[in-house]
């Protein structure tokens, strides 16, 4: 118990330390990429929960990210001024709409970002429940292909739909207002605040997942992962737990999509692409599958390097190679929990204790 909170506190300390370092060295512009990294990490830990703890792979999580991002982007940029339906007037009365100025000085009447965010999460939950039910009945490579397919369908829809901006995506998404006049936006003036907000949310999500893992549900999931039939025999509703974990990780992805879209001020179809989904799985894999901290730290490093452009044109290839290497040499993930003890056993392996392969 205490160890869990100690780790969270240590991580929060690291976040503060990074910010202070950038302050001292005058490299505050790094914080922009670090903030984006925080949001991407939110997807990664959600996916880690699904892959590592529930034992279900998903190669379509970029699709959920895109659902969240696109719903909020569309609702907060679509001008409702010339629409006079019953719904519009109802929203108007309940304060669900805001009018603001666009970059050309014209006035816009759009859905309030908070309402858009709620709508995005709701849609994701509905989609995840509808799709998750039948998909999670599949196993192994069929599950992988089905989730991959879902991701591609979302990608094709956002790419081919005119009012979602087709290949250009949606831009000029307004900032996300918070109480106290604060705003989630990529503006340089609120960079430090947004950095702390993003990582604060990340830590909150992390604490939630860590508590979940150490709860009855987490232990049930571990049983499902270990031996599904045995878990079923012990009276664990395996299908329901798997589905709920799937939806939870989809919501993490969608929330990251919503916030990052407001932070970046736009979203494009490449966010829904297969490469993004593969990248998240690769990060979970290198992080050790069932290791939230491993996934988080790897996500911090790799996403940051990628966003800073260190991989250049080999960006996708780097994550492809990572995935291959992990699957070849350490199919249980690299930074897994018993890594140290495993290494010790390999080093001090005596001939008698060697198990037959």
């Amino acid at each position, binding site marked *: 118990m205490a160890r869990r909170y100690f780790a969270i506190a240590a991580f929060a300390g690291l976040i503060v330390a990074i910010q202070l370092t950038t302050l001292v060295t005058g490299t505050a512009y790094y914080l922009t990429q670090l903030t984006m990294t925080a949001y991407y990490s939110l997807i990664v830990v959600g996916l880690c929960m699904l892959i590592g703890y529930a034992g279900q*792979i998903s*190669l379509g999580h970029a699709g959920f990210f895109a659902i969240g991002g696109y719903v909020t982007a569309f609702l907060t940029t679509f001008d409702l001024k010339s629409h006079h339906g019953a719904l519009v007037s109802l929203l108007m009365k309940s304060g669900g709409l805001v009018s603001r100025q666009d970059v050309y000085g014209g006035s816009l009447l759009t859905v309030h970002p908070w309402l858009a965010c709620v709508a995005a999460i709701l849609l994701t939950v509905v989609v995840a429940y509808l799709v998750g039910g*039948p*998909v999670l*009945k*599949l*196993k*192994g*490579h*069929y*599950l*992988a*292909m*089905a989730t*991959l*397919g*879902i991701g*591609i*369908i979302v990608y*094709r*829809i956002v*790419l*081919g*739909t005119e009012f979602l901006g*087709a290949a250009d995506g949606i831009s000029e998404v307004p900032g996300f207002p918070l109480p106290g006049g604060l705003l989630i936006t990529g503006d340089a003036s609120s960079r430090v605040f947004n950095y702390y907000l993003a990582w604060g949310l990340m830590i909150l999500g992390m604490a939630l997942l860590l508590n979940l893992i150490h709860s009855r549900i987490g232990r049930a999931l571990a049983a499902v992962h270990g031996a599904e039939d045995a878990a079923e025999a012990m009276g664990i509703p395996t299908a329901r737990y798997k589905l709920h974990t799937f939806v939870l990780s989809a919501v993490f992805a969608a929330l990251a999509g919503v916030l990052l879209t407001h932070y970046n001020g736009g979203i494009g179809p490449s966010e829904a692409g*297969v*490469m993004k989904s*593969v990248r998240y*799985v690769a990060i979970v894999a290198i992080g050790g599958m069932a290791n939230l901290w491993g996934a988080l730290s790897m996500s911090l490093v790799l996403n940051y390097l990628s966003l800073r452009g260190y991989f250049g*044109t*080999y960006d*996708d*290839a780097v*994550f*492809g*190679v990572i*995935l*291959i290497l992990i*699957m*070849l040499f350490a*199919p249980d993930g690299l930074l897994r929990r018993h890594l140290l003890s495993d290494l010790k056993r390999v080093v001090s392996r005596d001939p008698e204790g060697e198990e037959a*392969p």
Partner: protein
Amino acid sequence: MLGGMTAVTLNQFVPMPLAILLAVVLTMIVGAVIEIVFIRWLYKPSVLRMVIITIGVSILIREIALHIWGDGVRALPYFTGSSVTSINLGGVYVSSQVLWVVGAGGLAVAALTAFFNLTMLGRQMRACAANRDAARLCGIDTGNMVTLSFILSAAIGAIGGCVVCPITYVQYDSGTPLAIKGFTVAILGGLGNSTAAVGAGMILGILESFSIWVLPTAYKEAISIAILLVILFFKPSGIFGSAEAARLKEF
């Protein structure tokens, strides 16, 4: 994709039939190398692990292709005639290349059926697919069979790429959608049944082409994947496969 791209490149130096032959052989070698380097030495790999590895490999090939060939769109010239000439078949005008595609497809199926039913090697491969351990007990080198199946499917993929690319063109990223479509067709037809796969391929192709009547063209790709999902959800044995045979494979 690899087959088509290689053939286009080689076509600049050697005559087309030779270029296609070389491209197919090269792709077969690549297929064999992939199997030997990434799959062969794994101890009892799960199918999921192999799928993820091959997804990784396909990303790698795609990125390498991008760096070699750039993102331009290429095509082979038509095998006979040109893009405007056509052949009159009982009142229907068909481009000659379409006949090449249909011919190559028919030939590939015939060759595969003959291979699996008539030759010793083909029967060994089927035995290996049905039960690996039993096949090994009968003295079949299962490792070599897997390599061979990789080579075989690489060859067929390359031939397909060469024949089709005068019509559809190839690009560095044209492989992935085709791979998913291939998987869809294989499931639809029931795995391990090449004749049914052709029927399933035709159904999928027709459904996809007609979908543009009711949906925007841009959604065409999504259609085949949606069909894949529906099949997986409701009838994982495929349209032509038997339910008993499917139960033996793990879903």
